[in-house]
């Protein structure tokens, strides 16, 4: 079978894009009009390509996590909770992520039954932790990462996003699909800037940090 590898340069025909036919594959350059059309088309294509690849990646990621979560959902719940804890989460953090109380968590650890919904949530949290650990090299301590605020103020953490059922934002941020924390917070809460504290930390004249009311 012949492998068709066309050089990039060769995709720019002689003289640039001379043909204006709609059926012609878009080509290269020469005149300003053609150039404008070329780059408008290129811009649209890159935008669509980015959109397609992002969507595709998110679908594959969801399928990966669904599969892991389903497997964990079939395991004994105490084991799943111990595995989550082994990543370095406190029981209080796990309870928050799952949206339950610490005493409820304690009962499950001791073997008391949980609802299918809570079993699923626990399996999914473990799946997300596994996924991030295995696929995002910069996250070497997933529990600490969950507790790191995206911006100093308001100190919203990935754990807050997760507890609020925004697993998608946690994963996009973790994988740097959305590397800008402000953009993540915009998607989470468009009014997040208004929820900042009335106080801020500044360095005072004596060189020590101090708290003052925002101007």
């Amino acid at each position, binding site marked *: 079978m012949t492998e068709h590898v066309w050089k990039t340069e060769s995709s720019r*025909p002689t*003289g640039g894009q*001379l043909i204006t036919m709609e059926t*012609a594959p878009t080509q290269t350059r020469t005149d300003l009009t053609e150039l404008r059309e070329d*780059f408008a088309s290129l811009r649209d294509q890159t935008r669509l390509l980015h959109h397609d690849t992002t969507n595709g990646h998110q679908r594959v990621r969801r399928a990966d996590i669904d599969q892991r979560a389903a497997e964990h959902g079939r395991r004994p719940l105490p084991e799943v909770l111990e595995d989550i804890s082994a990543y370095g989460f406190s029981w209080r953090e796990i309870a928050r992520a799952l949206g339950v109380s610490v005493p409820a968590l304690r009962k499950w650890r001791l073997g008391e039954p949980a609802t299918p919904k809570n079993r699923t949530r626990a399996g999914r949290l473990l799946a997300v932790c596994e996924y991030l650990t295995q696929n995002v090299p910069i996250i070497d301590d997933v529990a600490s990462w969950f507790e790191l605020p995206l911006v100093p103020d308001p100190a919203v953490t990935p754990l807050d996003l997760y507890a609020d059922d925004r697993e998608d934002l946690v994963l996009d941020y973790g994988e740097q699909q959305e590397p800008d924390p402000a953009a993540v917070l915009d998607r989470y809460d468009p009014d997040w800037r208004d929820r900042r504290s009335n106080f801020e930390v500044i360095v005072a004249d004596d060189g020590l940090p101090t708290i003052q009311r925002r101007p």
Partner: protein
Amino acid sequence: VVPQEVYLNAPIVLTACEVRLPPSGLPVLDEHITGLRERLDDVLPVFRTLSNQQVSVGFGPAGPEPPSVTQQRVLQLTDRAQSLVVQVAPDSLVIKTAAYKGWEAFRPVIGQVLRAARDVLGPDGYLRVGLRYIDEIRLSAGGGNVEDWAGYLNPILLAPDGLRVAAEGLASGGWHVVTRFTANDQHDLVLRYGPGEGHAINPKEPPLPPRIASPGPFFLFDIDSFWETDTEIPEFDPDGISSLCDRLHQPIRALFDYAVTDRLRDEVLRREPT
């Protein structure tokens, strides 16, 4: 050498020769314009400068990055009929005509432009040289249906339409075939063909055709024969580039002649244009 027949009603709408230069990043200066005008004034007395926008788009981890836009000055020289155009940009020379009168007439123009470019711009070398011939083949009547072309074109060119037999319930909406032939490591030929409607080349932008065909169905036959290097950059030698163009030109006519039939030659190409 047997001179090739020049058809009275040749379907060629554009011939272009492009020499792509190593990107120096240096602009086209006033002194370049003056120098080129002096050397090309006898064939290309009209000039204008264009401001050409170059847009670079990069990809980062978050997808496409904001494009960077730079202005590039482009010199355009034309003959008085505006049927011959030379475009000089920092990274390319393009010579194109909509009034092609045969290789023997076009080749000296290429040589003259190359010599002027060598003297005035002093390019460091060249990366790609291409010759492109774009034909809009039109029938005296019809052409809107594939069947109309039977007998006028080599059936090979119409073969893609045969696929509609398998596409039950679907009508052919046209096709555009791109085929690449390789002569050697550096010489390639890309052939694009397929039916079209209207004009393949905007007839109202220079180079202007001697006469504008009525818009209607046509068959595009677009040959791009080019040499390209991705290793050694040759010196900018006008004679060497002209000889290279001879080699690039060599397969073009044979391809065209194979694509059309005697019926097209007799009934269309050898007739006085209307």
